[in-house]
């Protein structure tokens, strides 16, 4: 008889282990499904929050941009009647709004070097202003009350005022603006005067331009001038130094025309005999009658025909009113989406509130514990099976792999289900909230990215959760198999 020789045990290939793992899962199908369910819920929560965040954000931002484009007339009317303020000029420099800067250069008759200096000084001015935004409300009240910090800079140029001011600042345990007293002194005595001298130049240039336009148009109301859409007015604007694209001008014309048309509808509603009839026709109270109500109501040709026929002094065609009503409905839909928020461009897919991020974290912890628990149950239920396998020559690594594969395949299925569920829920909620607008603002790339991230997170969670139970299983002593149940 040959003596017993001992060698190292062979390792099983991953395919065979996976097969055994699948068989084990199939045997304990309920437990496996529970793990899949827990995981899919957690992944659904994560992906839902991310999906909904991106969808709602994009919808609001798109709506806001469209509204902003639609409503440019107001700001143009302001800019054609008063000069730009210090803040307007600072903002234009900061955002590098080339159109505005060209206007300022022309109005102030500034050289390129002066423009460059303006850019540099604007940084200091913004830094100086930001200082007062950063300090606490009480400190701000003590130092400048409600006034603009720039007014203070004006006053500080008087002799000895700086020393007095810095003393007060130091009494509040604060650093002086711009870091040190010397910096502040240079700012107040050199940079700030330069800034005001330049802005004064710009403002006087703009004032001259405004006056020129008023005289040339014999003080005709500005929105009528825009509504006319004449190229002579456009070239007058251009000649006075305003930067305006032809396309923008056309848009402004349309907006102004719409405003005038709506005013004529409003005038018709003042007719004391017509108004009650219209209210009856629209089936609303007379008090609720206004232009918005009419435009909301005017959604069919029949209704508008009736309106045009009976209203006095409305010279608009049915088609025009229908068009107005359509664009009105669109903008009120956009307005409803935007509300009074001012969305800024989204930074990434994780532009979420702190609270939401915590919620996601907690949901993952719960999920981790849940999966670990079901996996532990799976291990406990199979104690004798694992021990038997070890008696039959299974290595620790085999047992470990068995359970890791089990968790991974459950993770795969659970994550996939979760992502689909999350996407469905997010679309459901945002469609209920925003209507069809959601589908106009989808970023497919981001949606894909979120899907992939959620999917991978699910699998990683499953793998993490499986670690401890698998380790427990792999360390089980083979003699456990000997125990009689």
């Amino acid at each position, binding site marked *: 008889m040959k003596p017993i020789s001992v060698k190292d*045990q062979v390792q099983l290939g991953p395919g065979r282990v996976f097969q055994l793992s699948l*068989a084990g899962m199939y045997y304990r199908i309920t437990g496996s499904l529970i793990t899949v369910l827990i995981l899919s819920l957690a992944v659904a929560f994560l992906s839902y929050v991310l999906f909904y965040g991106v969808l709602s954000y994009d919808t609001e931002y798109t709506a806001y941009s469209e509204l902003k484009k639609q409503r440019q007339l107001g700001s143009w009317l302001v800019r054609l009647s008063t000069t730009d303020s210090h803040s307007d000029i600072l903002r234009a420099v900061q955002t590098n709004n080339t159109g505005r800067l060209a206007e300022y250069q022309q109005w102030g008759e500034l050289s390129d070097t002066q423009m460059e200096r303006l850019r540099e000084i604007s940084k200091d001015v913004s830094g100086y202003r930001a200082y007062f935004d950063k300090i606490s409300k009480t400190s701000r009240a003590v130092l400048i009350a409600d006034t603009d910090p720039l007014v203070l800079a004006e006053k500080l140029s008087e002799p000895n005022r700086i020393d007095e001011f810095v003393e007060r600042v130091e009494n509040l345990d604060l650093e002086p603006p711009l870091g040190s007293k010397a910096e502040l002194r240079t700012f107040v005595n050199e940079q700030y005067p330069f800034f005001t001298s330049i802005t004064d130049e710009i403002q006087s240039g703009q004032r001259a331009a405004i006056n020129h336009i008023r005289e040339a148009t014999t003080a005709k109301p500005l929105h009528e001038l825009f509504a006319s859409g004449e190229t002579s007015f456009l070239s007058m604007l251009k000649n006075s130094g305003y930067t305006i694209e032809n396309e923008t001008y056309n848009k402004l014309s349309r907006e102004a025309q719409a405003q005038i048309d709506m005013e004529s509808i409003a005038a018709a509603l003042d007719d004391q005999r017509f108004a009650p009839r219209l209210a009856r026709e629209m089936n609303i109270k007379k008090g609720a009658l206004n232009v918005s109500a009419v435009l909301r109501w005017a959604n069919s040709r029949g209704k508008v025909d009736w309106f045009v026929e009976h209203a006095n002094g409305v010279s608009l065609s049915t088609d025009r009113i229908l068009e107005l009503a359509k664009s009105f409905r669109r903008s009120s839909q956009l307005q409803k989406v935007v509300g009074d928020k001012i969305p800024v461009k989204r930074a990434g897919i994780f532009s979420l509130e702190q609270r939401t991020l915590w919620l996601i974290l907690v949901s993952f912890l719960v999920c981790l514990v849940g999966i670990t628990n079901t996996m532990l149950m799976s291990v406990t239920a199979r104690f004798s099976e694992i021990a038997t396998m070890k008696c039959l020559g299974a*290595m620790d690594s085999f047992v470990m792999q068995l359970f890791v594969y089990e968790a991974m395949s459950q993770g795969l299925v659970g994550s996939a289900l979760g992502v689909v569920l999350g996407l469905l829920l997010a679309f459901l909620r945002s469609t209920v909230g925003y209507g069809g607008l959601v589908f106009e603002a989808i970023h497919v790339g981001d949606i894909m990215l979120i899907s992939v991230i959620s999917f991978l997170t699910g699998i990683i969670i499953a793998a993490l959760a499986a670690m401890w139970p698998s380790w427990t299983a792999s360390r089980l002593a083979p003699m456990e198999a000997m125990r009689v149940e």
Partner: protein
Amino acid sequence: MNQRKTAEKNKSGEKAIIIRTIDLVKSYGAGDAITYALRGVDSKIYRGEFIAILGPSGSGKSTFFNMVGALDSPSKGRVLIDEVDIAQLNAGELAFLRCRKIGYIFQSFNLIRYMTALENVTVPMAFAGVPPEEAHSRGMELLELVGLADRWSHRPIEMSGGQQQRVAIARSLCNNPKILLSDEPTGNLDLKTGGEILEVMRKINKEKGVTIICATHDLRLLDVCDRMMWIRDGRIQKVEDRANIKVRVGQIGGAK
């Protein structure tokens, strides 16, 4: 290597030793709460013999059995299988030993519940890296040997206790082990089926020359075995050759 050579030399003597235990001690707990399961067991088990280990519950029988089967490590003392100290083997080598050199038969059968009879028999061959086709045909041969070839596709739940135990025996033999360890193989079976199982084990011992170590309460085993070892309170009480013992079998398996 030296140990191997000693083993060869022993062969030329009267009987070759396959397992030797030297002052085997196993204790649980520590300090005042220490409990001894084995208190120094010196024993020799010879190649190709059928040895029965007898003793009341709690005598340390199962502990001894686990030590000998390389399933547990002793607190003190050594277990030499073919003159190789198993304490010196690493995890991989222990797995190799359990997989190919030792076969185990359990009181509770311990078949894997979601596998068919044939799949159960082929599991250790899979661990040993035997190709599936070969494992399949060898598995069928073994099922033939234990008389269950026609039930190869049945799962444990669809088989009786005796049939399950026979599948377990087929499984324990699949890598041609040198040693077969069985812990109360007939404990969960009725008298008749238990008898059949013992018959199968005797056949294996005689025909294949496999060393069989069998812990039992079943006195019918005395008919089958070559030697008997009584364990009591963690010590060997006595060792006797079958030939030196007179056994009279009564009506319902009772014996004196």
